[in-house]
């Protein structure tokens, strides 16, 4: 016998199920209950930097759209600062919830383009959004990132460079220009997105 370490165990995840919107976005479930739904404005009204629009779709292993997904976004501001980690514009939270159209599975959201973020080791991460996906059939929420194809910093980004198969790095890079970007997320299959254990 040895002494006990006495750590607690993290509560196990369970799928968010098909009705996640009731809890996290009741307006999308079809009813009005809260004075203010959280996560409806990622950047807030005072955010500096380039306003961008992102469109896309999440697909499953058969190529069908995942219409009941809920995506959370977490991002730095245009200066590369996360809310809570330094001074940001008033009203900038850098967090939001994205819900696709239930009939088509297509999503659209607006935010500002984040700046490069300094890592704890001093290396710079290229501008990116952090994404967390939950849905029916997803047992543990999936973390991934969205980078921008017009950023030179992608070539030296520490996370993109960790991806062994170079062609799979493209699954994390949104295509676009002129403030409109397109980003699909593929849960399974030949174009499967790189997901992260963070």
């Amino acid at each position, binding site marked *: 016998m040895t002494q006990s370490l006495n750590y607690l165990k993290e509560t196990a995840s*369970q*799928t968010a199920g098909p009705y996640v919107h009731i809890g996290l976005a009741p307006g999308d479930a079809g009813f009005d209950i809260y004075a203010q739904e959280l996560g409806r404005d990622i950047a807030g009204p005072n955010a500096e930097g380039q306003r961008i629009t992102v469109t896309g779709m999440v697909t499953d292993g058969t190529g069908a759209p995942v219409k009941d997904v809920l995506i959370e976004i977490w991002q730095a501001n245009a200066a590369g600062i996360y809310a809570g980690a330094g001074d940001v514009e008033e009203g900038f939270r850098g967090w939001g919830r994205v819900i696709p159209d239930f009939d088509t599975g297509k999503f659209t959201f607006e935010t500002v383009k984040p700046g490069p973020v300094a890592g704890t080791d001093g290396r710079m991460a290229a501008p990116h959004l952090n994404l967390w996906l939950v849905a029916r059939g997803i047992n543990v929420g999936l973390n991934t990132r969205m980078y921008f194809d017009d950023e030179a910093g992608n070539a030296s980004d520490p996370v993109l460079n960790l991806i062994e198969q170079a062609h799979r790095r493209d699954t994390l890079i949104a295509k676009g220009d002129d403030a409109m970007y397109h980003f699909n997320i593929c849960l399974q299959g030949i174009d499967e997105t790189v997901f992260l254990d963070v």
Partner: protein
Amino acid sequence: MTSPLYQRDREWHPPALAPDYKTSLGRSPKNALLSLDGTPSELTGPTFGHNDIDAIDNDLLRNYAKSGDPVGERIILHGRVLDENARPVPNTLVEIWQANAGGRYRHKKDSYLAAIDPNFGGCGRTLTDENGYYTFRTVKPGAYPWRNWINSWRPAHVHFSVFGTAFAQRLITQMYFEGDPLIAKCPIVKSIPDQRAVDQLVAALDLNATIPLDSIAYKFDIILRGHRSTFFENRPEGN
């Protein structure tokens, strides 16, 4: 930014692919997850305050009531949000959602024949207090059938969403009720490989927290990932 987190124990959580839960077959990544040592992108996270929510938001008996109380067994759900070091997680957002007492969700995509309750929305939210405590008042949700096998029934459950202080602590899970025979038969529950992890999702009947002649109570503690110690590292933030 917080200090790095303990690695998530992927053998404790359900695997992405749990074939008896059919929907996971087409929605589970086949490639290995890319493991990252925590970067500022994951060790930061959104925070919320009392300006974001209303006091009534944690009272599901009242937050959607139109003409009276919802139908069903009145219950108190309470507990603490702790981390793996058993430290309370204060001021963190806890959101719940559930079916009504008949097992019907208020959602435009739910068409189960059990009736909608005009006085029940089915969602609530609150912030933990300085000791990590939270409380909700609601009705006990009903079991309901779902399309997995031809005769599959979900045990009564409440969905929980919790934040913590780092985006990498983000967690969604489901709380079950002590004594429910459907728990052991549910493919979603059984996606969890370790029975001890299942037991941790079952809220205990807590007679001490009941309100006599009013509401019965269940206690459910939620554990988020713990912060790694930074012994011998020059990090001013410590744990």
